[in-house]
């Protein structure tokens, strides 16, 4: 058997117990890896006591790699984390790149299951077979970049290999509800507040160093596929675009189709747009490229501002989502300030989508007189005020003044601000929508509404399929021509995307960017060549479907119901001009079809017989016992 490291670490921070359990291959075949492993193990841990606070010791945190993590191929360096979200109170998860996942597998582990909470700041030290819970008081309070460098420096004498650090920043310690966890300064588990889960557990960091290697079941077959893919990657427009401009390459394509939210989702065009487009990014702040383990796509950016109010040292640069949330969403045309806001979010450890969107929401509250300078600690929080936007980001990280209110996320802040603040929300299930407008591609609307973690564009490839960057002709629903501004057939499309996506980016764990150019056959072949399994496309769709229901069921267990499967008013308000003029998703139609096809009852819970048919009887008992 190849791909897997073969062991899972179980660490209880309350008792200090550390246990290594072998990976069961039947389990591996059934749940593939990543979020498949994570969701199943999580359910097993909480099934006897599903009612608990996300910031309590009762909330397990699970980090899982996939069978491809650590294999020397493009776009497979990724891994996953999951837990109950402090931001939404529902299922929370992230898919992350970087180097940590590969290093963990080289140390001999497919994943780490963390339970309990420490009584003092702690970090986990992993050096191959040596696993220890160590005192982290000297790192507590330090920002992500500092901790990363210090931990590496503190352990450099023990081996020639420097190892990898995964850490939270002050935002996680301060329990900012959208705090992130960051590897190597710029590879971020951003969404749903996993950093706050660590903060509550007083877990500052994990250091891992591994000197082992991974086996590949069929090396010759993998080599042959590698050659085939080398030709595919060479000169491919998506890959070349990512290489040249990073994810921000989407700015110039997205603006044509009406995909990019502007002024807190009130516009899809803006006269200053080019000031923060990919060309401006390159001219104003870009210093170089970065990449993830063994990936030749190198879509990550490095940036720097040498002087002025937004000065920051060379480090990871903003991704597309960050340019949009801190730029277009806030009508902020200062590229330098976007770089600075990104630097603050990385150093404090915060999700840039929620942070930028929450600031855009607060600006609209300010502009409409719901809050004023007294509330905002003297900041003139108006559209395009770059200094105020950057200052507010820092206040959130520190949980200081008005930043403390915004640290709850926009939905939490709206409750405290009151009035008609909720009219300005762009959240589903409490999670701020990513920077892709469902008015221009109706299928995104359904995806945002029904994804277990809330408004999400990465849990399934719907964004890539409907957006046009991915084409899977082997799966009939995903090979047809797709009309963005139509709601017809989008339930069926979403379901196929969810089922395949759970295999693809959820469990295997392929990158949603660099691996989008693969077709389904190439993706399944890669997993088979590495693991030695003999999956078919049909089988991975079936396995993906079961894991999707498992995640949906977990959110249902935490209280998600049909009334939460709704888009906010703002995303259903037609745009008056531009490419998506007058277009809004028909949510009633799509939800009705989706509920029927997925076999949900009127409450938005999968019916017993559907769960039992999928072999999820345990989940079924829990959901219907609850009721």
């Amino acid at each position, binding site marked *: 058997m190849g791909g897997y490291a073969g062991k899972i670490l179980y660490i209880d921070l309350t008792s200090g117990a550390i246990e290594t359990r072998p990976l069961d291959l039947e389990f591996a075949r059934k749940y593939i890896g990543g979020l498949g492993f994570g969701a199943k193990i999580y359910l097993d841990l909480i099934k006897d006591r599903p009612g608990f606070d996300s910031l309590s010791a009762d909330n397990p945190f699970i980090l899982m790699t996939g069978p491809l993590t650590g294999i020397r191929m493009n776009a497979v360096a990724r891994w996953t984390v999951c837990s109950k979200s402090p931001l939404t109170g529902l299922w929370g998860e992230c898919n992350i790149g970087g180097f940590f996942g590969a290093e963990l597998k080289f140390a001999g582990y497919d994943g780490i299951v963390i339970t309990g909470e420490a009584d003092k700041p702690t970090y986990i030290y992993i050096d191959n077979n040596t696993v220890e819970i160590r005192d982290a008081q000297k790192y507590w309070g330090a920002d992500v970049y500092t901790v990363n460098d210090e931990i590496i420096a503190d352990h450099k004498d023990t081996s020639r290999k420097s190892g990898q650090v995964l850490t939270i920043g002050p935002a996680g310690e301060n329990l900012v509800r959208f705090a992130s966890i960051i590897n190597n300064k710029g590879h971020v588990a951003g969404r749903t507040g996993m950093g706050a889960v660590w903060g509550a557990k007083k877990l500052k960091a994990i250091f891992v160093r591994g000197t082992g290697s991974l086996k590949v079941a069929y090396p010759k077959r993998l080599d042959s596929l590698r050659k085939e893919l080398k030709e595919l990657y060479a*000169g491919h*427009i998506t890959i*070349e675009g990512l290489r*040249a401009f990073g994810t921000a390459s989407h700015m*110039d394509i997205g603006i*044509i*189709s009406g995909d990019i939210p502007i002024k807190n989702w009130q516009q899809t065009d803006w006269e200053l747009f080019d000031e923060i487009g990919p*060309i401006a990014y390159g001219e104003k702040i870009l210093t170089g490229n970065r990449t993830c383990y063994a990936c030749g796509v190198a879509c990550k950016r490095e940036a720097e501002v040498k002087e002025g109010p937004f000065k920051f040292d060379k480090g990871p640069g903003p991704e597309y989502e960050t340019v949009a949330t801190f730029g277009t969403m806030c009508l902020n045309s200062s590229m330098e300030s976007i770089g600075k806001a990104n630097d603050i979010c990385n150093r404090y450890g915060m999700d840039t989508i929620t942070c930028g969107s929450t600031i855009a929401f607060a600006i609209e509250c300010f502009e409409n007189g719901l809050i004023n300078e007294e509330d905002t600690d003297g900041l003139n929080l108006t559209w395009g005020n770059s200094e105020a936007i950057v200052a507010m980001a820092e206040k959130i990280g520190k949980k200081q003044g008005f930043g403390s209110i915004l640290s709850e996320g926009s939905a939490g802040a709206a409750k405290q601000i009151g009035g008609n603040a909720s009219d300005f929300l762009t959240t589903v299930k409490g999670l701020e929508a990513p920077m892709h407008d469902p008015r221009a591609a109706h299928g995104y609307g359904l995806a945002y509404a029904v994804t277990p973690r809330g408004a999400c564009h990465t849990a399934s490839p719907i964004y890539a399929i409907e957006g046009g960057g991915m084409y899977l002709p082997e799966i009939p629903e995903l090979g047809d021509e797709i009309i963005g501004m139509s709601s017809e057939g989008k339930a069926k499309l979403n379901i196929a995307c969810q089922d395949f996506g759970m295999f693809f980016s959820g469990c295997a764990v392929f990158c949603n960017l660099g691996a989008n150019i693969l077709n389904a056959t190439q993706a399944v072949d890669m997993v088979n060549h590495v693991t030695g399994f003999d999956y078919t496309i049909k089988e991975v769709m079936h396995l993906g479907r079961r894991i999707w229901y498992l995640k949906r069921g977990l959110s249902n267990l935490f209280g998600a119901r049909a009334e939460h499967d709704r888009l906010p008013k703002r995303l259903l308000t037609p745009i008056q001009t531009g*490419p998506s003029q007058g277009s809004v998703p028909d949510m009633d139609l799509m939800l009705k079809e989706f509920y029927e096809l997925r076999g949900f009852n009127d409450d938005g819970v999968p019916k017993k017989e559907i769960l039992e048919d999928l072999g999820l009887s345990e989940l079924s008992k829990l959901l219907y016992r609850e009721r």
Partner: protein
Amino acid sequence: MGIFESSQKFEEILGGFFRHVSDTPSVANKLLASKLIIRFTYTDPDVVIVVDCSGDKVGVRPGDTDTKAEVNMSMSADIAHKFWFGKVNLLAALTRRQMVAKGPIPKILKLLPAIKPAYTMYPKYLEDNGYNKYNIY
């Protein structure tokens, strides 16, 4: 049979549109900054147009098969027509090879902000020049 009845008609309409665009300073200046020579090869009906941004002025040369182009774009005439109406998902068209772009991709992508204003110009150009029957706006 596509939208356009003959190569001559399509060349007249699209060539005319490209000349119209190249006479619009806000677009032309951005095109000239790229210094690219782009050959558009259309099928059904078959037409070749070279857009030359290498000089002081944008040159539009229908039928030019001799000039060496740095960028070659191929697509059907119908896709091109819908594209200028903003009715083609560019990424999907490229992914599904309804459009094929050959050349330095970063330079091609840099053209996108330049051509964006042209979307609103195309329907008006058709209307103003008596090509109403082709208008799908």
